[in-house]
């Protein structure tokens, strides 16, 4: 009985909880302006999805915002992965009291909220206010802790003998790290990449303080578009934007689903 009902219940739940909101996005993004003013679940009389996507793309400066997003996401992810795993490797292998304290400090950023207001002042003093470099620095400061946490846990599961073999062959620490450790970290780095991309790609809060009004990213731009008087109640354009912005992550997920799921969950329940 339960076995027979379970698939029905599962599908009903998906339709109700996920299907309805997603349908609202697609249907509204396909409507004309007049139809979309009061968003509802009825299908559009005539589909304008592509027109709306095109209108958002050109009128809302999406290409510039997309460029801004990439300009910040790519160096941030590369930076946290390389620098975070360098630190995590040494922290995991050396068991002194100093490294234990440094580890605690290193992962505290997972939990503690960053100082969003004073960081603006600091960036101004450093001459980095409103710049991509300043934004990347802030994200590095926020997300290095996530990488250090995940990678340190992972390094401890790698047998040390693998490093030793390379050392006996005369490899220095840089060579051991680059040629032995880093390749072994691939699974955990894949997880970290997904998580950090997810956070940074979608972040609007930190970006508002650091680069708001100076440099555009997709979420900042969406926020501006949706809050601007001109676009208020232009739900068809807001949801067309939501589709444009979510598509890259959804596509990445669709392609690498299995890996991503096992990566995310593996770190959490061990």
């Amino acid at each position, binding site marked *: 009985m339960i076995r027979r009902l379970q698939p029905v*219940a*599962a599908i009903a*739940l*998906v339709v109700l909880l*996920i299907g309805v*909101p997603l349908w*609202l*996005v697609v249907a509204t993004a396909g409507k004309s302006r007049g139809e979309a003013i009061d*968003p509802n679940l009825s299908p559009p009389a005539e589909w304008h999805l592509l027109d709306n996507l095109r209108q958002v793309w050109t009128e809302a400066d999406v290409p510039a915002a997309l460029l801004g997003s990439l300009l910040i996401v790519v160096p941030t992810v590369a*930076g946290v992965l390389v*620098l*975070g795993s*360098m*630190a995590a490797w040494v*922290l995991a*292998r*050396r068991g002194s009291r100093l490294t234990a304290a*440094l580890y*605690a*400090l*290193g992962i505290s*950023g997972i*939990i*503690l*909220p960053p*100082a*969003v*207001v*004073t*960081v603006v*002042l*600091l960036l101004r003093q*450093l001459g980095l206010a409103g710049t991509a470099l300043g934004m990347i*620095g*802030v994200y*590095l*400061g*926020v997300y*290095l802790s996530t990488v250090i946490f995940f990678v340190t*846990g992972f390094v401890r599961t790698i047998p040390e003998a693998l490093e030793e073999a390379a*050392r006996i062959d005369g490899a220095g*620490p840089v060579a*051991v*790290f680059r040629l032995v450790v880093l390749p072994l970290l691939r699974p955990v780095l894949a997880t970290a990449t997904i998580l950090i991309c*997810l956070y940074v790609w*979608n972040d*609007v809060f930190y970006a508002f303080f650091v680069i708001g009004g100076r440099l555009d990213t997709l*979420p900042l731009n*969406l926020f501006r578009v949706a809050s601007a008087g001109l676009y208020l109640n232009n739900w068809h354009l807001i949801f067309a934007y*939501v589709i444009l*912005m*979510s598509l890259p*992550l959804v596509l990445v*997920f669709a392609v690498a*689903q299995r890996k991503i799921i096992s990566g995310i*969950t*593996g770190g*959490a*329940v*061990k």
Partner: protein
Amino acid sequence: MTSAIGTLTKARALPQAAPGTITRRTHPLWFLLPAYALLLVFFVLPTAYQFVYAFTDWSGFKASINPVGVENLTQLASDGTLFRALRITVVYAVLVAIFQNAFGFGLAVLLERDTLVNRICRTFFVVPVLMSALAVGYVFQALLKGTGLLADTTWTIVVVALIHAWKWMGLAMLIYLAGLKTIPEDVLEAARIDGASRWRAFWAIRVPLLAPAVTFNVATALLGSMNGFDIVQATTGGGPARTTELLNIFIYRTFGQGLFAQATTMSLVLFLLVTLMAFPVIYLLRRREEVQ
């Protein structure tokens, strides 16, 4: 001379006599340098700044910054803003933690068996996790527009907490699913042989063994929602009548008004609140790791 150097190096080499010993030569501390320099400049330093600038008159209206003591704090406390924002933030965080875990756990149990239908359903529940929180907020603002659910001074905080939980329930589900998988089949088999009912085996064996997943999920939900902003900003903007104004929304609003010192003060309050709640959480996470 050479022998002196020889003894020196030998003395130095002593601790790593056994091959494979970890030393500063094989794992040099300078590997920590870039990461910790960045953490120091972009995380520790701004945090330290908060303890200074929360007690000044820093604002967007004048160039000079002068110390004013605890004036910002007393002002925020005396007009009720401080405790209201604190209360709203904690209520929101607790509600999110409850809803997110209840939904995630329920979905994990429902979709546990590895059938094709279940696999497809799981994928759909992960889509909101990938969406931007801002977008999620707009979706629900549109969906709930005519219902009055976002305009109730008592219940809107519950509604926005439900939306937050909706966005993240897929992640909680995945973590609970992974947790359920770590429970060995033979333990359940033994319980069955001992005559335990399905129901009893579930609550007496599986649920307790999910402890690590619960720790992780509750901790991330609690602390993630205390730092929440996007979803509430996009659905209610802190309203109605500021009944959903989380600390971060207050910070965003006052910062936009140029009241930098007040924003810093609230940011410091948030920092202290999270620190206070984080100690037990860090303790649990670290202990979990040592077991591993």
